Each structure stands twice: as C-alpha cells, then as structure tokens.
C-alpha cells in the first residue's frame, strides 16, 4: 500500500524532502514508517522521542496501523508563537 509522508521544519532540512510517497506492507504501523526514515536519515534517530507523528492531520500513536493513502507527517518539536 502507498502512504504519503510529509516533512516540516528540521525534518524537512534533514531529509531534503518536502513530501514523498512510500510503499509499505499491509498492516504497517506508523512507528515502523518512522523507523524506516530513522535508518535512512540518522539525524532523525538523534531526535529520539521529541518527534511526533501526524496521521491524517491528527496526532498519531506509533502503534497506529496505517491504511492505503494515509497522510503521515514527521513533526519536530513545535516552536510557534
């Protein structure tokens, strides 16, 4: 299945990506997707648990099972205001 992955702020800087589509096994969890990117971009690993995940524009738990066409966002610690 395909999911769309979005990057913001420092995760965009680290990956050089604004967004991309990735192919995942059926039943893959949000945390597994994050692990994929951490292996690809070690600087994400260094961010540890400060990274939050968005799934379809809501906060998503790492255990969340993803579905075809889900929108997953890698959200660095926020600094608005």
């Amino acid at each position, binding site marked *: 299945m395909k999911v769309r992955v979005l990057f913001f702020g420092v995760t965009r*800087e680290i990956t050089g990506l604004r967004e991309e589509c990735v192919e995942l096994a059926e039943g893959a969890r949000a945390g597994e997707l994050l692990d994929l990117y951490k292996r690809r971009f070690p600087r994400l690993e260094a961010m540890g648990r400060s990274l939050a995940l968005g799934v379809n524009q809501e906060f998503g738990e790492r255990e969340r099972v993803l579905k075809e066409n889900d929108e997953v966002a890698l959200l660095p610690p926020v*600094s*608005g205001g």
Partner: protein
Amino acid sequence: MGPRWSQMIEEPEGHFFALTREPIDGRELAARLVRGEDGAVVTFEGVARSHSQGRRTLALEYDCYEPMAIQMMARLGREIAVAHAIGRVGLVHRLGRVEIGEASVVIVATAAHRGAAFAACREGIDRLKRLVPIWKKEYFEDGAVWVEGAWDAAVVKG
C-alpha cells in the same frame, strides 16, 4: 496579493481562527470579536524580537502543517472559551517571513470581566506554543537555524 487567509475557521459563536502570510492587525481582530455585553478585551501579540540568546536576529520564518494547525487552533480555542466561560476567542498566526517588530501571533479574548479574558489569553498562547504544528526559523547574520521547541508532554508520551 494572494488570499488574505491561508486557512480560516469562523465558528457560529464568533470565535475566529486563521493562518496568514500577511501582517496581522490585532485591533481589527479585537473589533471583529467584541460584543456589546463584553466589559474586557485582552489582546496578546507575540512579536519578532531582534535578539535570540545574545545573537542579533535579522528576521524569522514560520513553517506550518496548515490543515492540522488550523484544526488544532480551533479545538484549543473552543476548549479555552468553555473553560474560562469567556465570550469569544481569536487566534491568528503569521506564516512565512516575519520582520523584526512584526507580530507573529495575535490572541484576543473577550469577556464580561477582565479576569477571565486575561486568563484565557494567557492559556491560549501557552498551549498554542506546545500543541500547534508550527515551526520557527531564526535568521542571523551568519546563518539560520530551526528553533528547537517542545511538544506538550501528552503529545509525545508513548
């Protein structure tokens, strides 16, 4: 000039939430929200500062996950309005490049009495800074960095 609001939600109760790439007019936002029964209008403006940790800042830039941010702002605003029993709340955040001295965020709370309006305004900015997916980049004379903020503990608990 593009559309004035990148994202905008106006609630039936009159609460107003928006993201914009243009300067924010705090007085206009307050005028939009105030009703005859209000005795207090409190406006908080967060402003781009010329120094950050001892270094001169030239400008700020804000990145945002817009569709999620506007929904989070609306949810936050509704919660605050109920919790403090105020009249109306407005939350507007600027995106893109913000010059020194310009407002990056404006929060307005209107209420019958000042106590609730002050408290709602304070809670609004405190929670917005930890819950709404917006990121700030500081431009210095010798480079630029994304500011490492912090999520509300409930967001990154598990």
